[in-house]
């Protein structure tokens, strides 16, 4: 694009300030879903990420650590504030996932929930009189917890991520990684990356959505390192005269925010400090748009407006076949 050089200060850059003020007033919304077997530290990690008691465990007074027989989804919302910036954080938990003896189709309630949120947003968008700011309950990020076995991805991991990688941004993490030595960690991560590639699973940040070279370089660094090996805690201990978040064992203190010990800081930077807006953008411009296109095609084919039910599954050849009629 041929630009023209300015011969004086116009003040265009003040737009950034205006944007900033507006967004600060409006606040942000962020919806994060945590998926994994019981006991992998999902609630603790979320609390540690946002440095407050935002998980379902901390909010339910009569919380019992029992394994539930079916997969339900429970969401808890909080408004947290930092330096004048307000964020409405919703944590969606999935108790019961992968805990039964027979876990077939345990991912169905999750797929259904995600599609329902897209449907809600779509319905709002299609109204004649729309709200100024459509409430955004779509899942911006799904953190999938892998147990630190040290071997490879398990069949349930592959099945889940295959299906959900198509409709939401998945960030896989190695949970309770303090049971792996550094060498075991590297080997494990490499095998997981191989398995992900072999199964055609795309996790966040997806290669196809890198916008420019700068993005690509930044995201490549992240892609070489996923899944992050994390350890979470809400307890503090004294180490070298500083108070740090850590886990104290008989053989040492695992410092959660120390990058030499675990990759919690990398995960936090990815989710909160550098890629939060990008996660929301990918959800809105890519995953939501895919859903919307399919939905509208399906409604065109049936020539009867929007049906009441959202799509059952991400991929349905039936609808595509209909749309070709």
């Amino acid at each position: 694009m041929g630009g023209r050089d300015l011969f004086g200060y116009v003040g265009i850059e003040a737009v950034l300030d205006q944007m900033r003020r507006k967004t600060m007033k409006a606040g942000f919304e962020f919806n994060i879903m945590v998926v994994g077997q019981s006991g992998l530290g999902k609630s603790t990690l979320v609390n540690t990420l946002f440095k407050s008691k935002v998980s379902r465990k901390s909010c339910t007074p009569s919380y019992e650590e029992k394994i539930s027989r079916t997969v339900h989804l429970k969401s808890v919302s909080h408004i947290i504030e930092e330096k004048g910036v307000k964020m409405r954080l919703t944590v969606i938990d999935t108790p019961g996932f992968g805990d039964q003896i027979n876990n077939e189709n345990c991912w169905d309630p999750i797929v259904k929930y995600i599609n329902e949120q897209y449907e809600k947003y779509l319905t709002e968008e299609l109204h004649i009189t729309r709200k100024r700011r459509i409430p955004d309950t779509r899942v911006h990020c799904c953190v999938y917890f892998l147990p630190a076995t040290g071997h490879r991805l398990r069949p349930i991991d592959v099945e889940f991520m295959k299906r959900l990688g198509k409709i939401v941004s998945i960030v896989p993490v190695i949970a309770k990684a303090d049971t792996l030595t550094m060498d075991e960690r590297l080997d494990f991560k490499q095998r997981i990356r191989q398995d992900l590639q072999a199964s055609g699973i795309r996790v966040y940040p997806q290669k196809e959505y890198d916008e420019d070279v700068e993005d690509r370089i930044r995201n490549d660094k992240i892609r070489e390192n996923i899944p992050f090996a994390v350890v979470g805690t809400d307890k503090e201990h004294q180490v070298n005269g500083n108070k740090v978040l850590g886990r104290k064992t008989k053989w040492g203190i695992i410092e959660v925010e120390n990058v030499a010990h675990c990759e919690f800081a990398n995960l936090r930077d990815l989710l909160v400090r550098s890629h939060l807006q990008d996660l929301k953008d990918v959800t809105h411009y890519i995953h939501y748009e895919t859903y919307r296109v399919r939905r509208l095609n399906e409604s065109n084919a049936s020539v009867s407006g929007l049906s009441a039910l959202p799509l059952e599954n991400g991929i349905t050849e039936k609808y595509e076949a209909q749309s070709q009629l």
Partner: protein
Amino acid sequence: MTTNMRYKSRIIKTEDSEDKQYVGFATLPNQVHRKSVKKGFDFTLMVAGESGLGKSTLVNSLFLTDLYKDRKLLNAEERISQTVEITKHTVDIEEKGVKLKLTIVDTPGFGDAVNNNECWKPITDYIDQQFEQYFRDESGLNRKNILDNRVHCCLYFIPPFGHGLRPVDVEFMKALHERVNIIALIAKADCLTPNETKKLKDRVRDEIERFGIKVYQFPECDSDEDEEFKQMDKELKECTPFAVIGSNTVVEARGQRVRGRLYPWGIVEVENQSHCDFVKLRNMLIRSHMHDLKDVTCDVHYENYRAHCIQQMTSKLAQDNRMDSSIPILPLPTPDAETERLIKMKDEELKRMQEMLEKMQQQMHEKDQ
């Protein structure tokens, strides 16, 4: 030599009355000991639990061998179609002249699939098969060289990640507790702080009781054991399920070379009692209760199986013949002279082959030295 001389001197020194009352069968334990050392022992240990809980590493640490050198880990695609297998590794270990034939039965694939319904069935079938084979051998004509493949003990690995027993753990243990001695272990205990370990152990113990799972119980101490032994026994019982850590590597800690795992935040020593219960497990499994495990297998589990089998046969016979048969007969054909001769020949061949194997092992041992 010295014992003889001591005996002689005792004869000279003791009075006549004592001499008359000493018969000499107090040396029986020594005779049994000598015979057992010559014969050697065997022990079959089963390890069960999901992949990645450190079972192979723990077995290697317990017996200081490397049984799984050529193992290949399946990738996720191969694992999707994998079923539960039973694999056996046998190794002969010798220590201070005592020979142990150790068989490790592994169960790869257990609990790894998406649908794990009845994933314990291959395992219960295997245990029953070993019982059945022993039953047939025992009821057979030539019982000199019976091979005892019965599983003496099953180490079940509970993941430390959960909040207690999961449905698959409960179902597995309930399917097996009346067939084999189950010892529950908390695997990979280095991801738990001391508080978490205690909470998890309490929780697992409660749930084992609540679900009526009969894990292996340590026998009570005799009242004439010394206080130290009783105290150790009490501590052992309160420590179950054992929280274990295994390691294939030797690291340097506190100026010594120990088996351990090296982390950026510290070194976990496998044999340090304040780090994990590995030493307690090893002592219990090998040093104090190995024989008891075998006895319970023979006297309780095998007898249960045998009684059950015979009952089934009698009821079947009663149904078939519509009369009460007092002695349950095994459906064995009456052997003729020909079959008996064949059996004798095969037995002698087996014995010869065993002797040859021993000689070869000895030769190889001498060559290494």
